[in-house]
């Protein structure tokens, strides 16, 4: 039991933090939002740092790293509220490495690692809400391969990416497919989301597809769990920065002739925010360290972690805005963008109520970190 980061991990953190500070300042981010919420050049810079290949084995051109390194990177991206969907790349590389055949791996993993190809999960459907076992998209054999028909919602950078991982049913059972965006029958309608990043509604009409695995639900659950762990880490970075912004403001802004930080009511609220931050950080570690656990244990851990993160994000986000007063609700102030990011992360891969249901459904007689 050890929660220290290795020297290599600290170096990785420093490298990403430096890139965020230099290459992704707030004005730069604002320009990207204005231009549609996605910048392939920025994504290319992440790939140049090696981050796109973080989960990909060295034989396929990646860095062959694990969940802890991914957590370190996602924390730093969260600290800078970076919009480019690296969490999706972790998911795609994790799923393809774990479930695809060798041909598919060789075709896609090196290109993902280099940043040449961006592959995202397209799994959300109108009626499924956050459930993974509900899927109306269908797939059927076509020639030597498959074809997929169905509509997927709020797909990250969906009109900009190179390919999608798409769950679709075969004989009533969910399978997972890879569909290229340039393929016939694929139509993506893009827009920006609340945090300023890009997403799309994607329609597949008899689109040619490659089968990743027939055990699609297992792969999809694994995909979402990689996403949950990454989202938790990203949230911790954003929470950390939100706290720092708020503390700084409280120590400078004066009301009634004294700084806000002298009022006990506000000091105690900061203590409550610190509590939520440290609970969140603890559960982000927990999610990361359980990512390679057996399925049931892993799923139980992700539900618990995402529930805690949801509670923490909503509390710290709302309190931070309130403590800033009027400036906190302006577009001009960076803090309001952290609030929107936190809100969006809460609704990514299952919101707080959804995961409370997951925790409730998976409760055992015993409880605790190891149960």
């Amino acid at each position: 039991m050890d929660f220290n980061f290795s020297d290599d991990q600290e170096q990785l953190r420093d490298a990403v933090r430096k890139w965020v500070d230099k290459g992704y300042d707030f004005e730069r981010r604002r320009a990207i939002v204005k231009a549609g919420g996605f910048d392939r050049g920025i994504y290319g810079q992440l790939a140049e740092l090696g981050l796109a290949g973080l989960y990909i084995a060295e034989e396929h051109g990646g860095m062959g790293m694990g969940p802890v390194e991914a957590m370190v990177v996602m924390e730093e991206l969260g600290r800078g509220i970076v919009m480019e969907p690296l969490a999706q790349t972790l998911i795609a590389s994790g799923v393809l490495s774990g479930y695809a055949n060798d041909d598919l791996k060789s075709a896609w993993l090196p290109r993902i690692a280099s940043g040449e190809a961006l592959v995202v999960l397209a799994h959300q459907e109108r009626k499924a809400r956050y459930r993974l076992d509900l899927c109306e998209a269908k797939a059927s054999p076509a020639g030597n391969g498959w074809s997929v028909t169905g509509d997927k919602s709020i797909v990250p950078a969906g009109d900009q990416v190179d390919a999608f991982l798409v769950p679709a049913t075969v004989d009533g059972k969910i399978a997972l497919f890879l569909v290229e965006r340039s393929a016939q029958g694929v139509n993506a309608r893009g827009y920006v989301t609340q945090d300023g990043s890009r997403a799309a509604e994607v329609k597949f009409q008899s689109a040619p597809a490659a089968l990743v695995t027939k055990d699609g639900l297992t792969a999809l659950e694994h995909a979402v769990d990689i996403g949950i762990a990454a989202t938790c880490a990203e949230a911790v970075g954003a929470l950390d920065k939100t706290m720092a912004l708020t503390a700084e403001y409280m120590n400078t802004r004066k009301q009634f002739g004294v700084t806000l930080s002298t009022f006990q009511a506000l000091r105690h609220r900061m203590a409550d925010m610190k509590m939520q931050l440290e609970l969140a950080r603890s559960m982000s570690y927990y999610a990361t360290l359980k990512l390679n656990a057996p399925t049931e244990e892993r799923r139980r851990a992700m539900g618990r972690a995402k529930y805690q993160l949801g509670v923490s994000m909503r509390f710290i986000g709302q309190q931070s805005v309130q403590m800033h007063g009027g400036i906190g609700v302006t577009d001009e102030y960076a803090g309001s963008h952290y609030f929107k990011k936190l809100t969006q992360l809460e609704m990514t891969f299952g919101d707080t109520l959804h995961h409370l249901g997951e925790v409730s459904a998976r409760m055992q007689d015993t409880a605790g970190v190891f149960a």
Partner: protein
Amino acid sequence: MDLAFTPEEQKFREEIRAWVRDNLPQEISHKVHNALHLTRDDMQRWAKILGKKGWLGYGWPKEFGGPGWTAVQKHLFEEECALAGAPRIVPFGPVMVAPVIMTFGNAEQHKRFLPGIASGEVWWSQGYSEPGSGSDLASLKTRAERKGDKYIVNGQKTWTTLAQYGDWIFCLVRTSTEGKPQTGISFLLIDMKSPGVTVRPIIMLDGGHEVNEVFFDNVEVPAENLIGEENKGWTYAKHLLSHERTNIADVNRAKRELERLKRIAKSEGVYADPRFRDEVARLEVDVVALEMMVLRVLSAEKSGKNPLDIAGLLKIKGSEIQQRYTELMMLAAGPYALPFIKEAMEAGWQGEHVGAAYVAPLAATYFNYRKTTIYGGSSEVQRTIVAQTVLG
């Protein structure tokens, strides 16, 4: 980073588990598992069993006769004891005063006081709180005046836990009224059989006798019972309190009680109600998150780097969790929590229960546990300390 305990730690855990299984009297664990009333004999019996093994002072370094365990080993010991249903070690001797005596006392005091604490023979009480001082400890008024080779002590302590059994009491006393209130305080050990010491029970809202008022009326205390230097007691007390707060998170007991909550809720037929079950689920996440925080602190202690300043958070969250599980157990029993039959909280009572036998102490425990966010520095005091770390 690694969540698992090392194979050596795992082996240590298994040895502790086997030993506790073989040595914890079953009638005592039965009481603990069912929140029944523990007598002085129950508590002292277990203390002496541990004392004989050399584990009552399980946090002590080897040079003072302790096992010299690491932070992780101490945690595993606490966990195995809690899960097995061992009574909580009465902390005043082995956990609180002993480290102060070791760190700030002289060789003579080591020889005189530590063996009785280590063996569980001598029952210690804590004399910190006073009427009107509450969490503002520095405002205490009990006076100790030096007269030759004695101190003459006058004043009153309150909320003194289990002082009705106490042989000795360690007190913060005022030896000077000059300067800041913190600077005139001394740390004094007082034999409770001394003439002029009176213990008066305070009956609490659950009907139980757990705390007391202790009066000192011209009590003569030999000057050799002063720990360290006169007027430096505040420093020693802070040393002690830092010990108390880590311990007070009590996450292992929370795990055991969460299991009991689930059993009770199942048995009362309310576990299937999604609204109730969600409340249990929320508590489950709280317990896991608290445990992760405790493990983070342990990891930091183990590595000696990155000290974590989150002890205040452990106290706030730990005490809230304790209150929450007692609340949910009571609510699980529903109207059957309402009958107040004191004898039904004693083990072996032969009368007829109202509802299931396990419901008898549930409301009393809920009432009793309102104390957890008040003692050891109230949650409000803790929040002030935490805010200081965030805001300066």
